[in-house]
């Protein structure tokens, strides 16, 4: 059992602030992904956890024991590094046995245990190889085995998959999940790749500018991003800028750059006032497209009404480009001088072409709104 608590963790290099304030509790046996763009402080946070950097401020506790000032070699953490950092003058087996050697385990026993670890990552055949002759994926497995061999309370992974090609990286993600499930140890995994984080994580912690912005289960973080940065970082989306025109008890009407009002239903009409600047996020998966002449009736306020009677938002635009991205097709549509994109699966692509007039429509309830300071509007 290893529960980790970070409390007000900060790291400064001279004037430069790498980590400003990170506080989070990582549960025993949890796999937490720290996700953020480069320079967000996620690797520095991990290195402080490992004991490779001394925090300028704050506290780290592992199982309620303060380890903030404890050097790396006295911590029960083990790290898998981005470039794997295998010892070049030692064989694969000696690499894996190194941690046990440092613990004072006898030669025979540590070789045997190292062999077991290599078996777990299916690298037994390479036990006597020079690690420098291995492929990236093989090095990654050896690095993993080397860290697991010391039976750490916490395994720290510092973007270990970022140097692998996409296919290999995806295979390794699945393998990592399996190993995590089997060992029931606490893992902290740092990555800049959203897909990787969503595949692996029990919880995701999103970092930006040295701060932990939001922590939550993947689904929750995706559905309920705390601010505009997270919404933009987690996936491609359309941000539409606008100004609140008027609010009513159950809806906010926003005058947008799309040249028409967007109606967002709300249960909290006091959240915004007329004249507030807002960004609306229209996620591509929430947009449906159809031929512009597919008839829609307008209600008395001029809002289109679906055939089933529900109100909806829609705009008409011209297809600018059609991009085939494997299993999906992305349509980029020019609307009133800006550009909106929508996606369809290939089988359901509707076969529109560049120059076609199409209608994009969405359910107002799928729209997320952000204030101009980036914070999310709770509608």
């Amino acid at each position, binding site marked *: 059992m290893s529960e980790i608590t970070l409390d007000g963790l900060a790291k400064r290099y001279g004037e430069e602030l790498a980590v400003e304030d990170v506080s989070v509790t990582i549960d025993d046996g949890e796999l937490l992904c720290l996700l953020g763009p480069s320079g967000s402080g996620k690797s520095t946070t991990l290195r402080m956890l490992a*004991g490779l950097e001394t925090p300028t401020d704050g506290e780290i506790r592992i199982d309620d024991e303060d380890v903030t000032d404890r050097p790396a*070699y006295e911590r029960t953490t083990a790290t898998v*590094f981005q470039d794997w*950092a295998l010892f*070049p*003058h*030692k064989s694969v087996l000696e690499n894996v046995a*190194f941690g046990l*050697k440092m*613990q004072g385990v006898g030669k025979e026993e540590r070789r045997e245990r190292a062999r077991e670890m290599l078996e777990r990552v299916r690298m037994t055949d390479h036990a006597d190889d020079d690690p420098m002759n291995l492929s990236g994926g093989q090095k990654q497995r050896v690095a993993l085995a080397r860290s697991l061999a010391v039976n750490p309370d916490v395994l720290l992974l510092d973007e270990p998959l970022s140097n692998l090609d996409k296919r290999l990286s995806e295979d390794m993600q699945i393998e990592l999940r399996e190993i995590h499930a089997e060992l029931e140890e606490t893992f902290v995994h740092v990555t800049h790749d959203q897909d990787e984080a969503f595949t692996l994580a029990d919880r995701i912690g999103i970092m930006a500018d040295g701060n932990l912005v939001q922590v939550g289960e993947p689904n929750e973080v995706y559905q309920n991003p705390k601010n505009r940065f997270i919404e933009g970082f987690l996936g491609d989306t359309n941000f539409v800028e606008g100004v609140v025109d008027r609010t009513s008890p159950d809806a906010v009407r926003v005058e947008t750059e799309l040249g028409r009002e967007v109606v967002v239903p709300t249960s909290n009409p006091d959240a915004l006032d007329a004249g507030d600047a807002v960004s609306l996020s229209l996620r591509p998966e929430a947009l449906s497209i159809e031929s512009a002449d597919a008839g829609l009736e307008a209600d008395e306020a001029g809002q289109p009404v679906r055939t089933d009677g529900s109100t909806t938002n829609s705009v008409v635009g011209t297809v600018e480009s059609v991009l085939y991205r494997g299993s999906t097709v992305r349509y980029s549509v020019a609307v009133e001088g800006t550009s909106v994109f929508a996606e369809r699966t290939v089988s359901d692509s509707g076969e529109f072409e560049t120059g076609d007039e199409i209608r994009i429509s969405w359910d107002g309830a799928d729209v997320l709104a952000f204030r101009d300071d980036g914070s999310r509007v709770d509608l």
Partner: protein
Amino acid sequence: MSGTHSSLPAPIARVWEPLRERSRSKRALLLMAPLLVFELLLFVAPFLILLRISLTSGSQDLRYAAGTWSLEGYAEVLSSGVLQDAILYSFKLGLIATGITVSIAVFYAYAIWRAEGAIKSALLFSVILPLLTTLVVKTYAFRPLLSPTGTVNDLLLSLNLVSEPIQFVPGTIGVIVGQVYIVLPYAVLAIYSVLSTMDWGIVEAARDLGASRPRSVLEIVVPQAMPGIIVATVISFAWSVGAYAAPGLLASQRVPFAIEVEKRLLSNLQWEIATAYAVIMLLLMAASIGVLTVTLNRFGGEFEYA
């Protein structure tokens, strides 16, 4: 050029063409030739002559008897206690100085590698400046420092660490200190140049896996730096065994090889002995450097401290 050779007769053109193909390597050869000739004339030839003179017999009124063949020189070296003592003393100095030099050099090179900014520049400067300063200057500064009335003894006396002055200079301790000072810059740079290509991440990995800081240096840094350490050892040993300046200025009665061979060559004019002595010394050095290198190479991989 193409204009001229098109008018060449066919047989000559047939020879010329492949030569032209090889013109790049021919030009390269031409560029390397001067240095090659220089090395042959100024390095290889002198050694062959040295070898030849070592095989002549002695002469009463000349430096050696030209044209004769004899092993007298070698016989003298192998039978003379004085000459052998000097060699033994030289090797003793060489081994001690090398051991001290290489240990300090590993530490200092590591410190330079880890240092940043102004400290790194200062440390590098402290190595390069003595390196580019003449042996004479480097050695004689130790006389006012280490003599019985010198600075170090004053310090030791005032701190009550010793009751009477210690005679470091002239003496073997002074020679060793001076010799370490002479070769240390070369040893540090040889090791530093290897370390500077090393990835700090693997040292972090070792610490992460439970190696304390001294242990991580021993387990990871030293084996990785072994090529540099071998170069440092070879240079330190070769130059310390052949040391001339430090013993010349700082030694007392015991005389090493360099001083003895100088005496035979310049004062006694016994060239057959001096040259045979130099040849034997060179062979012994080559053999011991070979042994040292092989021994150190075995430490390049996995080894046991525990």
